[in-house]
């Protein structure tokens, strides 16, 4: 792999959506002509299993990456992280994007001040582990319907990455860094996307890269810039989805134990750190609500007659019963936090709140 090149990976939409395919194809062919960019196409990121060629390829990339997908940038970032494709979140500046000021809090470890709203005892996020010194930019293909804005942004990112590498090189410590950052499961790119890479219909990437995943998947993705390792999800989920790693950090251990369509654990998470990228409401699907045009406040928990916890318990019961087990309602794995922690925090005037809501109008 040429280290001076930026790798762009385009993750396709599920199914055969003609409008989406069209944008993907236009983008891929335009990117092929771009200087200094390697482009590859893989299936929908969320559906890839550990051993899918597309995932192996992603892990084999050692430099900066731009991932284009039909997912919220935050969802895509932490999905990659879970699969061992780790890096610092690059700040995308796509017009109509949700990044802008919000993204900064994920960049550095010094993010304490972003939540200094008066409650000192708030547990801190545990942040991603073992992040190599490279950047991953995740762009949401739903933000623009033409390829041009993406191309423009990718060119800007390419320049930004090049500039950063030059700086690092001149500081003279990049070589040793890069060595220890080699991702696990390294496979030379040539062995995957070799001779077959540029055949066929003008789209890049081999057929192996694009092999259709066996099925659609459904599992939670943890945002470690929010997760405080409180373990409430592991207590709540009765299907064995969660586990802990060697360092006792929460982990989505058995993603395929998860119940399709069920977002219950994300409602229970006190930090809103659990993402279900394919869930219908943006907050659960990984949107950064509030900093965005066009994205909505989710009032479901107010209009359901249920609080989030009861709703979650109901959703969990439905899946338990489907599995031939007994419903447990609110008797198992219910967070102790309810009440206690929520009493903290400032009291806000509704007017301020409503002003903020009103500002979301565009």
């Amino acid at each position, binding site marked *: 792999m040429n280290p001076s090149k930026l790798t762009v990976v385009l993750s396709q939409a599920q199914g055969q959506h003609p409008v989406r395919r069209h944008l993907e194809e236009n983008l891929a062919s335009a990117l092929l002509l771009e200087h200094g960019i390697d482009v590859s196409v893989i299936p929908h990121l969320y559906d890839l299993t550990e051993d899918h060629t597309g995932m192996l390829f992603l892990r084999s990339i050692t430099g900066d990456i731009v991932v284009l997908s039909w997912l919220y940038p935050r969802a895509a970032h932490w999905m990659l992280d879970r699969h061992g494709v780790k890096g610092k979140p690059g700040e995308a500046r796509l017009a109509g994007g949700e990044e802008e000021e*919000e993204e900064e809090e994920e960049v550095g470890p010094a993010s304490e001040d972003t*939540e200094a709203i008066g409650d000192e005892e708030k547990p801190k996020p545990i942040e991603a582990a073992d992040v190599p010194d490279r950047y991953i930019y995740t762009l949401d293909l739903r933000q623009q319907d033409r390829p041009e804005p993406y191309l423009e942004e990718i060119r800007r990112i390419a320049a930004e990455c090049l500039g950063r590498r030059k700086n690092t090189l001149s500081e003279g410590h990049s070589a040793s860094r890069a060595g220890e950052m080699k991702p696990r499961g390294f496979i030379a790119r040539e062995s995957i996307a070799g001779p077959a890479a540029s055949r066929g219909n003008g789209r890049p990437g081999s057929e192996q890269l694009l092999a259709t995943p066996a099925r659609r998947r459904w599992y939670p993705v943890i945002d470690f810039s*929010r997760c405080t390792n409180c373990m409430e999800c592991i207590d709540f989920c009765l299907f064995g989805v969660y586990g802990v790693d060697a360092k006792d950090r929460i982990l989505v251990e058995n993603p395929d134990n998860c119940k399709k369509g069920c977002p219950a654990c994300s409602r229970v998470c006190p*930090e*809103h750190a659990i993402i279900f990228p394919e869930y219908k*409401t943006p*907050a659960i699907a990984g*949107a*950064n*609500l*509030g*900093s965005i045009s066009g994205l*909505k*406040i*989710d*009032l*479901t*928990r*107010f*209009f*359901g*007659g*249920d609080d989030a916890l009861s709703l979650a318990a*109901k959703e969990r019961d439905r899946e338990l019963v489907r599995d031939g087990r007994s419903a447990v309602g609110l008797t198992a794995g219910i967070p102790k936090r309810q009440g206690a922690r*929520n009493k903290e*925090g400032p*009291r*806000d*005037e*509704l*007017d301020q*709140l*409503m002003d*903020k*809501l*009103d500002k*979301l*109008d565009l």
Partner: protein
Amino acid sequence: MSECLTFQMGKYEARFPADLFYTRNHMWMRTEGRRLVFGLTAYAVRLLKDVYFLDWQTSAPVEVERGQEIGSIESSKALSSIFAPVQGTLLRFNDDLLSDPSAISIDPYGAGWLFEMEGDASVALRPEDYVKFLDAGWEATQRALKKQVQGS
């Protein structure tokens, strides 16, 4: 409209006609013989504001459980699922709203009615109890909304 109870949402005064019943998912209920007519309360409408999209997941008539998801609603800045307020038979939706749901915001207790049901109305609250219910949950609601607005 006759007498109203009120609930202060910041500067906004939400009004609740005294001759209606209310449910905890912010619907009002009017009884017409055995039929129950439901719509969204002024409280719900204030949170949503300008409703511009409404969709039902089911066609009437249909048996529903209380709390079952039956549709979704969207305004320029908010969205929500809609849940059956009581257990029973959902007889008829207000079809006029499908093409133009703005009546929900403009005339919530009149032309903005959502659907008719027949069923167990025992869970409905009297207006004074609904206002008490709003009052009790108000702090938490504001906090939860604020959290969403801040995207945290």
